[in-house]
């Protein structure tokens, strides 16, 4: 089949799944509505696989015209190149596994069909985002995933206990993302004004050809465009200053956290920057900004994760931290390395989230790791896969995270050894909080209630199967982009593959010297193994004891309270806004608007009361008024006539 037909089918599948479930889901049994949702995504995955096999060079498919103006056209067109197909593979592949998982996880939920509607809609929007060939379609998908994220974070909005908290978390995510979206809109306007097109390949050609007015290395315009784009990325990909929504987004059901808030949507910012690589290459200042923000985010988030007690919150902060690492790679200009880390991160973070979902499911919705413990005997498959995920994210030698992280760190080392030291702190912290999480959850003795202990069980096959597949991917995902150290032929397969996308082939990647690579790998391995042993001795051997939040001291409080970041925003932004709102409400609304409107109403009413007295039901008085009116008319007429003459 031709590529354009495949593309249409690919986009229609998740959309029709969403429509079927959205319109008729209420009347369908759970197995069918879940089955339809899952099948649509699985079929999409098959189609993407076939596209993956066919693509040798970028293909552009234009479906129809959206906006036609004198100076430019905006088309619903799609760019099928190595980058978009690779992203689509991750989205539909991980998406399929998470759909399968959801069929088990959400089985007790009343909003089952609604859940699958939103999930399919999300997949559709995400595919638009990565497949679109211009910023307009990208923006369309960008907003689409935003609204799905909002709907799914607040999925349990009517929960009697947490409903309000869930809704607030959804609102926070929405508002935070709007700030980023404003950046994207401004960037799009500026790009349109400068290049008179929004097509990626067109812009790339114009940039590389040179001669566009106002576009040169570090010119004000290009810095403004790239910084606006990066602002958008900080919103979606949860970087400082807009990252605080992501930990709160854990209010959503766990499969949502896995799919949207770990594996796919949050990498949209990374994808968008990678897609805009030709612009960022002209703006070294913006790249430096990205580099430092990435490092700061990675470190801050890793620190915050150290003393979180909610299993999902720890993973959320680790997601922010890992996204920081990807942004570091972007800041270094190593776009393909960032995509490599996106890929491996999608594997192991989806695995970890689904694992935590399996734990939460088995523990009757308990999320506090201090009330777990010893689960390795009760949930053997979850335990084993979770262990693999933990090892992968901590950079344990030869697992996927080891390679992708090592490449980022290697690039950073070549650029700036001091920053390398800083980011190593973040890597160490990652290992610390992940092993703490792992040991507290699966080792030691059971600390929950008796009821939970009796009910604790291994999850059904629909939940463990995705875990096993993701665990396998997490182990072997690193093979996608092996460093030249291990292979001479076929090394850096992913980097070479992605070089087909516009702009990405032009960026050179200096290969670090073999000795340096070995040294860096040795350091990373030592760190992760060292931390593993330390964490085992601290949390598993001695029998860890939960401490109340009030008993924490010094840095632990800071970590537990997220460096008071939310409180700071509350003080700096929410409070002044509330003050302004209250003031406007009291002064403008209360004194001016209300006084005016209420005054008008009172006036009308009072006048009416008085005038009503004229209607006294007496014929003679009516006649009196009639005669008075008549006389007034005559007088008026006479005056008029006299004046005219």
């Amino acid at each position, binding site marked *: 089949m031709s590529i354009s037909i495949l593309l249409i089918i690919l986009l229609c599948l998740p959309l029709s799944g969403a429509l079927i479930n959205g319109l008729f889901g209420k009347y369908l049994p759970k197995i069918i509505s879940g089955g339809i949702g899952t099948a649509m995504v699985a079929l999409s995955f098959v189609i993407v696989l076939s596209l993956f096999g066919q693509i040798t060079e970028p293909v552009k498919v234009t479906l129809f015209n959206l906006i036609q103006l004198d100076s430019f056209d905006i088309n619903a067109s799609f760019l099928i190149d190595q980058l978009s197909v690779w992203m689509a593979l991750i989205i539909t592949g991980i998406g399929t596994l998470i759909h399968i998982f959801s069929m088990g996880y959400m089985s007790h939920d009343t909003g089952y069909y609604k859940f699958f509607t939103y999930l399919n809609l999300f997949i559709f929007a995400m595919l638009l985002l990565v497949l679109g060939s211009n910023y307009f379609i990208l923006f369309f998908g960008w907003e689409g995933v935003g609204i799905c994220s909002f709907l799914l974070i607040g999925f349990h909005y009517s929960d009697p206990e947490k409903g309000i908290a869930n809704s607030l978390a959804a609102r926070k995510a929405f508002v935070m993302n709007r700030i980023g979206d404003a950046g994207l809109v401004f960037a799009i306007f500026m790009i349109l004004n400068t290049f008179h097109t929004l097509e990626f390949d067109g812009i790339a050609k114009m940039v590389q050809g040179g001669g566009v007015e106002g576009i040169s290395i570090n010119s004000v315009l290009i810095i403004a465009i790239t910084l606006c784009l990066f602002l958008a990325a900080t919103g979606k990909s949860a970087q400082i200053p807009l990252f605080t929504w992501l930990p709160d987004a854990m209010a959503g059901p766990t499969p949502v956290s896995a799919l949207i808030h770990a594996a796919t949507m949050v990498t949209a910012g990374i994808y968008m920057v990678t897609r805009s690589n030709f612009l960022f290459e002209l703006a070294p200042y913006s790249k430096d900004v990205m580099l430092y923000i990435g490092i700061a985010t990675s470190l801050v988030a890793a620190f915050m994760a150290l003393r979180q007690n909610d299993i999902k919150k720890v993973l959320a902060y680790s997601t922010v931290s890992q996204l920081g690492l990807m942004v570091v790679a972007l800041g270094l200009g190593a776009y393909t390395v960032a995509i490599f880390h996106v890929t491996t991160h999608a594997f192991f973070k989806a695995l970890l989230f689904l694992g935590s979902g399996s734990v939460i499911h088995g523990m009757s919705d308990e999320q506090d790791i201090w009330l777990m413990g010893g689960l390795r005997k009760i949930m053997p498959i979850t335990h084993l896969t979770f262990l693999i995920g933990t090892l992968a994210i901590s950079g344990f030698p030869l697992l996927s995270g080891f390679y992708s992280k090592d490449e980022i760190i290697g690039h950073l080392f070549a650029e700036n050894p001091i920053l390398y030291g800083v980011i190593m702190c973040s890597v160490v912290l990652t290992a610390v909080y992940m092993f703490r999480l792992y040991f507290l959850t699966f080792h030691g003795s059971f600390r929950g209630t008796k009821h939970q202990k009796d009910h604790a069980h291994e999850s059904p096959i629909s939940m463990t199967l995705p875990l096993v597949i993701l665990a396998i991917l997490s182990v072997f995902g690193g093979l996608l982009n092996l460093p030249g150290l291990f292979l001479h032929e076929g090394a850096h397969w992913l980097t070479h593959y992605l070089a087909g996308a516009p702009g990405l082939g032009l960026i050179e990647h200096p290969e670090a010297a073999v000795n340096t690579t070995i040294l860096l790998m040795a350091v990373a391995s030592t760190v992760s193994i060292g931390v593993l042993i330390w964490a085992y001795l601290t949390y598993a051997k001695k029998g860890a004891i939960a401490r109340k939040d009030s008993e924490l001291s010094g840095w632990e409080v800071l970590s537990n309270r997220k460096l008071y970041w939310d409180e700071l925003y509350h003080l700096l932004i929410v409070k002044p806004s509330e003050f302004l709102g209250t003031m406007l409400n009291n002064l403008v609304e209360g004194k001016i608007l209300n006084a005016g409107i209420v005054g008008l109403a009172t006036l009308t009413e009072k006048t009416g009361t008085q005038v*009503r007295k004229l*209607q*006294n*039901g*007496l*014929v*003679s008085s009516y*006649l*009196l008024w009639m*005669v008075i009116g008549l006389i007034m008319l005559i007088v008026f007429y006479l005056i008029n006539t006299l004046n005219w003459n």
Partner: protein
Amino acid sequence: MGSTATVNIDFFVILSSLLFVIGAFGVMIRRNMIVLLMCIELMLNAVNLLLVSFSTYYGNADAQIFVFFIIVVAAAEATVGLSILILAYRHLRTIDVSLFNKLKG
């Protein structure tokens, strides 16, 4: 104008104005509904008088046609008015219009 001595048109105007004002004041002041109806007739006929006077004065018959219409309408109006009067009397046992104030808002 015929051979008979003509009366100045001013007298007709003054007479009909007087009649109209008497009628209007009567409607406003009197409470007896029969008198009220009579006053209305008075006003109508004042107008009729004015119309025929000017009709003769100008030698134009158009106004006389109007007068016939007004007489017919006045007759109909008197019929309706008297019927209402009878019904109102049966209902309220009075024909004092100052007591007919049940329809006020």
